[in-house]
């Protein structure tokens, strides 16, 4: 691990009226690292994800991103075209509901190929070959490449969304509850897939989840949030095995043991 962070946030604050969504949040992410943000509903997890990815502005604070040429960019001061280009190439966003991200009226191959075409790839054969390759990598049969997403199951849709996001080899992927709404066996398979892809491609991930098991399985480090405040942060196993803060202790003890 290098000393240079990929993404750094300092002193982020955001209020929705009187409700504090973020209060003085600091965060650091190193290349290839998976950082989980956990907490109950309404604790500001998704807001933090949106602010880190530049999709939402904070009232105060700054987010810094280091590009492959090691230049630092202030994500919130970036011109819109540069930020959008970043979201299309170097970054990825995996939504909880794959239908928010996928084009449901376009075939699986077209969905995976869209980012390639947006990046300027104009060779049909290559785009298609790449799409098939990625479908195989996310364990979707190659002969489903021309099928419409509406014929896919929930787990397949989520895997298709991941293929579509990773096709441009992003260095940083934001995931918002990627396993939410899936049944347990499908969840397990998807987690396994995400873990192997992330390790193999050395992708840094900011993962928002309310599920401690997901965090335990995927994340190197963990941030626990409560009412917009980061109450505890550290290595995943350390925090989950030996929680220091009262809220973290409550969270860990409230997980049902199967």
């Amino acid at each position, binding site marked *: 691990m290098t000393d240079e962070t990929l993404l750094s946030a300092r002193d982020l604050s955001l209020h929705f009226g009187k409700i504090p969504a973020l209060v003085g949040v600091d965060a650091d992410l190193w290349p290839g690292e998976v950082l989980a943000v956990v907490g109950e509903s309404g604790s500001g997890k998704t807001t933090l994800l949106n602010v880190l990815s530049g999709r939402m502005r904070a009232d105060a604070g700054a987010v810094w991103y280091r590009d492959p040429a090691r230049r630092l960019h202030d994500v919130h001061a970036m011109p*819109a075209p540069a930020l959008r280009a970043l979201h*299309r190439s170097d970054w990825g966003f995996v939504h909880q509901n794959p239908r928010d991200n996928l084009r449901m009226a*376009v075939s699986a191959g*077209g969905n995976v190929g869209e980012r390639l*075409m947006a990046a300027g790839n*104009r060779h*049909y054969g290559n785009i*298609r070959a790449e799409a098939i390759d990625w479908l195989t990598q996310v364990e979707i049969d190659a002969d489903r490449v021309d099928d419409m997403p509406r014929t896919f199951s929930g787990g397949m849709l989520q895997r298709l969304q991941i293929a579509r996001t990773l096709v441009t080899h992003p260095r940083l992927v934001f995931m918002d509850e990627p396993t939410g709404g899936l049944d347990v066996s499908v969840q397990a398979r998807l987690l396994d897939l995400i873990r192997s892809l992330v390790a193999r491609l050395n992708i840094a991930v900011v993962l928002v989840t309310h599920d401690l098991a997901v965090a335990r399985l995927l994340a190197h480090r963990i941030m626990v949030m409560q009412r917009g405040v980061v109450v505890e942060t550290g290595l995943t196993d350390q925090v989950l095995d030996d929680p220091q803060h009262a809220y973290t202790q409550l969270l860990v003890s409230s997980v049902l043991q199967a």
Partner: protein
Amino acid sequence: MNGYNFAYLDEQTKRMIRRALLKAVAIPGHQVPFGSREMPLPYGWGTGGIQVTASVLGADDTLKVIDQGADDTTNAVSIRRFFARTAGVATTTDTEQATIIQTRHRIPEKKLREDQIIVYQVPQPEPLFKLESSRAETRRMHALAEYGAMHVRLYEDITRFGQVAISYDYPVMVGGRFLMAPSPIPAFDNPKMHMMPALQLFGAGREKRIYAIPPYTEVRSLDFEDHPFRTTRAPHRCALCNADNSYLDEVVTDDRGGRMFVCSDTDHCETRQEAGHAGTGEALVREAPVGSAARGGGMKP
């Protein structure tokens, strides 16, 4: 004509439209909003084209109006007569003689010259409207030249049909910068827009947009490297003038499947006939489709 300003529109309106036109010419392919006026014909009949024509028309111009390639259809006749009455300009059906050509659905087969202006009637100026419903978002996509989504549409066509199945209003890149809808001309006419010596103006009345292609501007139809853009035409010769390279209309001649392929550009066809070219003049007879009787017999009421 008494009671009307020259070319129907008042001078302030024409001034406003000319300003939009100047901006459109300065940014080839970019849609410029303008205050479209009520015209004495319904939307979809050429209100945008007629306003652009009225604004560029001078007293010594000669006007030609094309509707579906023909000079003698309702829309062409009435718009031509409208300007003959309100501006007193000369009108013609001859592409060669015209200085301004207002058109719907076709570009003349004859090459246009530098001293001519072609005005297109545009129903839908936004090439991305089927892909992105928000106008605010499509404007952003144009501003940032984010046209990947359009290629997704072409990708889908090739995947499903083996080729791009857009037969008209085939999207083009103008000057390597702006994605543009060329109005519902057949894809067959797209190559004519590339490096055309004449000024090309586009008016969309209902959508209140004007755009333009200055003379000698690069206009490329979207395609893939391994699926290059191709034009298609009916594989026949014109039954009237025997042309084998013009865009053909299929005319149904009876109720037994008889049909005739004739040039869609009537002026082009007549010029060729006067020059001594002659086709068969006969309709093609369609053979009964195989199995049609069996299918018909199998129908239950």
